[in-house]
């Protein structure tokens, strides 16, 4: 199993074959888990590119994310025990209070994990206190919030204020996404950044993290 084949399996959304392929690369071929991760991530980058080009759509992104998730489950123990293990950038993600839409947020979480971030997904309909508490507990440097409803976008400001009151606001980057939002509105609610879709969200977060 060479690296190109692993990349290809992600690009071609081969959910049923990926686990065996990663196992083979690790066990039979004795490949470095971080090199395997790089090959898989290259596949996700290509998936993102195809999404931008309108060759792939949300359904394909979902499947790619699912394929990546399966691959990571196989790879995780090897990555953890590797001598190369390094500190990961921690990201807390959530759908804001009052909003039950989590498709985009879930996808972001999986894609972030595949990019090597340590992700704390708090779910949907999450209040500001819970987000602040998770940031405190984990020392996360990035908070990603999703709001798909016009009536819940103002919750971003509530989170921004709660982080400020907890003395954490200058320690975290607050990035937001969701259909009713745009950069002006995001800034108005105190966010640092806005991404118009999940793929752009990944790019923005990687930029923030300096990756």
């Amino acid at each position, binding site marked *: 199993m060479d690296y190109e084949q692993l990349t290809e399996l992600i690009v071609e959304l081969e959910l049923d074959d990926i686990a065996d392929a990663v196992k083979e690369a690790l066990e039979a071929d004795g490949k470095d888990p971080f090199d395997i991760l790089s090959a898989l991530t290259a596949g996700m980058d290509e998936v993102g590119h195809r999404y931008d080009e309108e060759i792939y*759509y949300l*359904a*394909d*992104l*979902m499947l790619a994310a699912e394929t990546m998730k399966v691959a990571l489950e196989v790879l995780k123990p090897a990555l953890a025990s590797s001598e190369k293990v390094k500190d990961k950038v921690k990201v807390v993600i959530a759908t804001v209070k009052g909003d*039950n*839409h989590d498709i985009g947020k879930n996808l972001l979480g999986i894609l972030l994990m595949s990019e090597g971030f340590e992700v704390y997904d708090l779910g949907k309909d999450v209040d500001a206190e819970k987000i602040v508490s998770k940031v405190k507990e984990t020392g996360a440097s990035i908070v990603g919030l999703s709001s798909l409803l*016009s*009536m819940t976008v103002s919750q971003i400001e509530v989170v921004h204020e709660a982080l400020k009151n907890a003395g954490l606001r200058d320690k975290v980057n607050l990035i937001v996404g969701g259909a009713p939002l745009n950069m002006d*509105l995001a800034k108005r609610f105190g966010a640092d950044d806005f991404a118009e879709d999940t793929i752009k969200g990944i790019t923005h977060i990687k930029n923030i993290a300096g990756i």
Partner: protein
Amino acid sequence: MPHDRTKSVIRFMKTLAGQVRGVDRVPFFAIIDEQFISRIMGITTREILSSPETYANCLIKTADFIKADTIQIPSAYAGPAEAYAFAEANSKMDSIQWYDYKPLAIKQGEVCKTEEDIEKLEIPEHSKIDLWDTTYKTANIIREKTKFPQGMGLGIWSVVQELRGINAFKDIRKNPDLLLKLCEKIYKSQLDSYNNWIEKVGESPIIMYTGYAFNKHMMSFKDAMKYEGQFIKRFQKEIKSPFFLHNCGTRPYFREACNEIDFIAVNGSHPLNIKYWIDFKKDFPKVTIMGANIDVSRELFTGTPQDVEEKVKENIINLAPGGRYIVSPICCLPWGVPIPNVLAIPEAIEKYGHYPIKGA
């Protein structure tokens, strides 16, 4: 001055149909849901829905307050209210969440979590669903009080997302037959809601079709036709009323959809470039534009009344000459939108929207 509702009905329906004679000015269509109604009326969502009389009264007063030319019932459109019907019919009401100052919501994906859930999914009888009963009665009260004909809404994919959640997108690739089975059940359910509407309220003069699949973020146009478009064509064989396509997504397939399906109008705010809409009007002269680039998250939310006036003016001057243009901010008026900005819309229409359009 009291709202002249007869004039409103004439200007809205004639503009939709592309008639220019007898239309005094550009109509104003606003999508108003419980978040805005509760703000204007000062009562909670449960109170709004507590009786058909209260619900109707709130809708009429809110529409009058912002001088809208139409009155729509938010629970008559596909989405949460239809998901509510499925939840009730399948004893999954614990998936429904009520809020004080916004519409009820369903926990997405809870009703059809598994394949078995879809196989066993019961199609709701709308006459037995309390929310729909209230909706039908409310429609009758509004029609009687205001002489406004009341229309209803349909939409397959919006309900798929509510019932199946994130799994629906995986199903597109991994389990298309199962997904079509769910679409088929939603289709049957919506025919039931429509037939009840005919029986209890009367003809729906127009169908607001919420076509969320028609968005490039979601799926290819081919898939959008498979999971939404083919059902619209089937609805149109059963229902003689004209359909308008609502899509509040940021990358809608308006052009593609209008090439394939007969829509009397499109209702959306994207793309934001006015040139897209000018070209759309040229290429689809028989399709009324409701909205164009008036996005509730932009000028209306963060701007001033002057900004809103400029935006409405830009749309009227470019799109209203010759008719077939309706001012419509997209989508629902948000809770936090400054009221003076909302009121700037009818003021701008009054200033720039009388026929013949000046400055065009």
